[in-house]
């Protein structure tokens, strides 16, 4: 069982490091992405503008679900 636990330590620490290093990369990417879209999509302001201008975007949900269903059914 000692061998098994040594193996667990090796594989375990490897996964922990792999996971968190990947997360470092993803978080860097996320921040880069957020900085890029931030001027375009300022969530606060778009929300404030909703009562008048949010109309078109709201129909997206139906469109997206329809597309997803079509996609899924095409594969089955």
């Amino acid at each position, binding site marked *: 069982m000692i061998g098994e636990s040594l193996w667990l330590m090796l594989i375990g620490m490897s996964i922990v490091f792999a996971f968190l290093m990947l997360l470092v990369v993803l978080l860097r990417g996320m921040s880069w992405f957020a900085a890029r879209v931030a001027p375009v*999509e300022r*969530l606060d302001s*778009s*929300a404030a503008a*909703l*009562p008048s201008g*949010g*109309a078109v*975007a*709201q*129909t*997206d*949900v*139906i469109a*997206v*679900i*329809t597309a*997803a*269903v079509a*996609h*899924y*059914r095409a*594969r089955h």
Partner: protein
Amino acid sequence: MGIANLTWGQALMMGVGGVLIYLAIAKKFEPLLLVPIGFGALLSNIPVAGIGGHDGMIGQIYIVGVETGVFPLLIFMGVGALTDFGALIARPSTLLLGAAAQFGIFATLIGAVALNFVPGFDFSLQDASAIAIIGGADGPTAIFLASRLAPELLGAIAVAAYSYMALVPIIQPPIMRALTTEQERAVVMQQLRPVSRLERMLFPFVVLLLCAALLPSAAPLIGMLTFGNLLRECGVVERLSRAAQNEIINIVTIMLGLAVGSKLSADKFLTLETLGILLLGALAFSIGTAAGVIMGKIMHRVTGGKVNPLIGAAGVSAVPMAARVVNRVGLEADHHNFLLMHAMGPNVAGVIGSAVAAGILLALTGT
């Protein structure tokens, strides 16, 4: 590795969950329910983990709270504790607007059954009833009825119900404008009389007793709604009223949302039926709005022009959004005509109306 076991269906459903959350956050689309529903969909579609399964955490919450009907009923208690029925008590005739708007439900029922002629659809009468209730524009009522009549459609029905409720400001105005004249929309209504504390306290009993006498199948919904409202109005149980309005409704909303989200699985959601449900939901809201406005026009005639027909649109419920839409469309016609308080009567009447309709569907199509 989760990603190796990820099916296309799961990936798509995680996308659907993400879209629901995006709309909830970015567009303020019923966020209190769509954020937990969307996240529940994300969690439940993670491969291997089985969080939404029978032994998973969210699966267990579903069994305890949704299959038993307890969660939607507790939310209805909170709705009762949060709702001021004063405008309805001051002008009971607005109940007729709430009644007319339920036509959306029953027309949709026919639509759902008619859809069976299209190949690929096979809705039972129970399914059709559960779909039709989307037209009631009332989330907990829709979830309660779906959990009773068509549990396998619950995810799609709940998502459609909340999505269209959020779409009320887009769906309703064109219909309202098409069915009314500029002159009708400009009608200024008489101010509401004040309502006494005694009336507010008697109101829940009157509603409950009528329901008990005529329609016991609606009694769980109407019963919890009136119980919550009595806690609010009786004035001697402030602690309990606050618990119903805050702690209970908040905790249950989180749990209910996650549990509903767990029903957003590819095999149950990514089906032709879901497309039909979305289509029928739009139909239901539109017909309900139209029926409410037409009843508003009838009342306009009968009362000699005292009623602004726009307030009929609020009869679909979707409290308080539909009433705000009425106010907005009214202001377009006359910049000094505030219809909000007048629309609150049909608005809360719509809540009672759709609970009554749910009771009828349960009594007539339930097993």
